[in-house]
């Protein structure tokens, strides 16, 4: 077993985990943060995307033990004091989701994308989310949502 200490959504967490435990299973089953989803087993679909120290990462491909000392944000940690994150508002406004299963990972990837590039072009958005699969929307409303959030955070654009 491995002792780990990490911060998840601002809360300090200590745990004793099997070395092979995936971060996504630690989040989902030990912390019951089930908003982070598992859609594949080969790191393609991106449903499990979280922020690790501010950078997007696929939590199905990282052992919990590797996240020792890290600061992690999941979809549950994005809204602040009940106030939706601009990307959450934008996905709602622009109908950026249907079944909602890919949505948490998609939003976390978009959050990292906008942190790096607050005013991405449509092409940059499409490339930025190419590591996240959505089978429902054809991506167009997702692109619209990210543009919507981008315009909001950069009103002078």
């Amino acid at each position, binding site marked *: 077993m491995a002792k780990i200490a990490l911060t998840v959504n601002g809360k300090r967490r200590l745990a004793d985990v099997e070395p*092979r435990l995936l971060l996504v299973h630690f989040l989902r089953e030990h912390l*019951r943060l089930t908003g982070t989803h598992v859609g594949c087993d080969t790191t393609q679909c991106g449903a499990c995307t979280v922020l690790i120290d501010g950078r997007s990462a696929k939590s199905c491909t990282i052992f919990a033990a590797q996240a020792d000392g890290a600061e992690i944000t999941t979809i549950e940690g994005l809204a602040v004091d009940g106030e939706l994150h601009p990307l959450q508002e934008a996905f709602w406004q622009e109908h950026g989701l*249907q*079944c909602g299963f890919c949505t948490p990972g998609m939003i976390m990837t978009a959050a990292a994308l906008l942190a790096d590039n607050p005013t991405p072009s449509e092409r940059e958005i499409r490339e930025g989310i190419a590591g996240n699969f959505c089978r429902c*929307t054809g991506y167009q409303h997702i692109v619209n949502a990210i543009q919507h959030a981008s315009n909001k955070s950069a009103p002078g654009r």
Partner: protein
Amino acid sequence: MATAPMLPKLVGQRVKRREDPRLIQGRGTYVDDIALVGMQHVVFKRSDVAHGRIRAIDTRAAAAMDGVEAVFTGADIAKILPPMPIGTPFPSPEHRAVAVDTVRFAGEAVAVVVARDRYVARDAADAIVVEIDPLPAVVDLEQAMTGQPAVIHPEFANNLAVPLVPGGTGVKPDGTVDDSAIDAAFASAEVVISQRMMNHRLAPSAIEPRGVVAHYEPGKGTMTIWSSTQNPHILRTFIAALNGMGQDQVRAIAPEVGGGFGAKINIYAEEYVCSAISKALGIPLKWNEDRTEAFVATTHGRDILAYVDLAAKRDGTVLGLRMRLIADIGAYNMLLTAAIPTLTQMMANATYNIPAIRTTLTEVFTNKTPTDAYRGAGRPEATYFVERAMDMLARELKMDPGELRRKNFIQPHQFPFATQSGAVYDSGDYAKALDLALKTANWEQLKRERDAARAEGRLVGLGLSMYVEVCGLGPSAALPTGGWEHAQVTIERDGRISATTGASPHGQGNETTFAQMLADQFGVPIEHVTILHGDTGIVKQGIGTFGSRSQAVGGTAIHLAGSKVKAKMAKFAAAMMEASEEDLVFENGTIAVKGAPASAKPFAAIASYAYVPVPLPPGMEPGLSDEAFWEPANNTYPFGCHISMLEIDRQTGEPTLLKLVAVDDAGNLINPLIVEGQIHGGLAQGIGQAMIEEVVYNEDGQLLTGSFMDYALPRAVDFPRFELAASVTPTPVNPLGAKGVGEAGTLGSTPCIVSAAVDALSEFGVKHVDMMLRPEKLWRIIQGGRS
């Protein structure tokens, strides 16, 4: 009251979805999010071999592992579970949920482990030793029909699951076939187009894999099963039957469902096995599908080969159509497997007056994952075959592809239109959709752009396709489950409205569209309406969501149940207000006498009175709740026209979709925002099939595209911005005038893209290219090969 703000009418508006707040915050509950006290985990051991006899299964090491509760072989499961049923009248071989002595596709379950957690269960499954004597794998469809290299089910000679079903002109109810009309059509033809076309196999790939939680409670003798399913009521029916229980003793719950696309209609081996083991052991169990597992264990779609012949006059008048269909259905019949290709026969008439049609359908077993419904389910195949043939005819006659189609359209005055293949199209105006598409795409300008690009040496092509879809499934004569849908509407004592629907959604937004309808019907804020679904313990009856039926059938049931309750509420209001119920209007959260706003009583006050009815109006029962079963008299037939522009890189053969215009006519729209989303999603799957998605097996029956590393699921970079427009031709089949839209996008997009590729390659004399448009295939054509 007069100063209260007017509530806007919501039907027809782009209302934001009411499902979204929980989903965008990660607060939805999907099957894998459910945890029950004492719950153990199930993992299936699966065959690595496509076809073979099981010689031995050694489970001793697995059973001895710490944390393992139980291990079951196929023989053990057969003692507690009968063979799997199917939902079609076709003959079917015995299909055990876990193989007993023979495996017939790679990935078929051979043993089951129950253990403390999913890691231990996986370890134990890996420790099971399975010895299989391989048999030759049946992979090639047309070779399979000769019984070579093996016969998969001894009682089905030559692997013919369905030897031959005739369809079209001159097929009598007694099964006799008169070919004189089709023979005459071809005898008088001035031009005949003949082409072999493959509509290849796809993996539906909902991003949420399947999952089950089964909880048998021995003390009560009841079962609760949560499953990622499109139809919990059908699940309940089958789980009860196979576990020897009554339907009153089983509760089936579809919680949040992460996409279905037809593949979650089936009742699968894993659902039966988890329920049976939970019953046997008396403990709650969870199984969750891995993606790699989903590629083999969840049904595939399409995989129909067609030999198409189209007879016409040189002026473009179509005289006759022959379509010989051969479907590769994989190793077993699943719930609807055998029926899906019959929809291809049914829709062979497309949007045209075709004087004579002859279809034949043969279904063939192979050592592959079974096929079943996948978005469109038989109709995209029909559209593809007919529209590709029409495009080839236009090319042969040097006619504009739109004008050739216009010349053959079924005309608006011909509706309702009885087709050669037994359908009755409800309503249509195909020229309207074509004209709108040509205008939206700026077709003549596109042609000039294409020609200018060609003058620069670029390989650019245009494609156009019409489609007509069959939606709103029902009626009951067409569905063994029944083709109705159920709704219950209740005005609660506080004046809020709760309604249940059997149309169990998985992304369609029914919580929003149905609430829009009820808010309008009762003149109350949408925030006061709650739509409940997906739980047979709450939703008394239902069929489910498939065949683009939830709005046309489920929405109509909501409307009708609402009408019944509204009529009763008007009686209470009339009694309370000493007015005539015919004079009452429901608006702005009140009920008022028409033209006398001062008379308005709060909606909640009338509701409260109905539950404490002192005095009780004569002849009335207390309460405000009623239900409706809506049985449609016919299907609905949405239609549209899709146009694409595509460029192929002359050096690499790589195709790029430059433009896609989709005009869809789904009748009246309840929420255009949601409709757009449905169309986008359908387009993405249709484009995916045309351009990058393909399930591939090798000659040993091994799946080569068994993960997202090898199966190319479209990404955001694979699409241009779709351009949509809608014409509106309401259906007379239901009072909403709504036809359905979930599958439409997969119909027109696929043939119009392949036609654009053929157009782009026209300088090489190409007449047809089979999907998908793999760059290597296109590169070979460019290098001088011919297709």
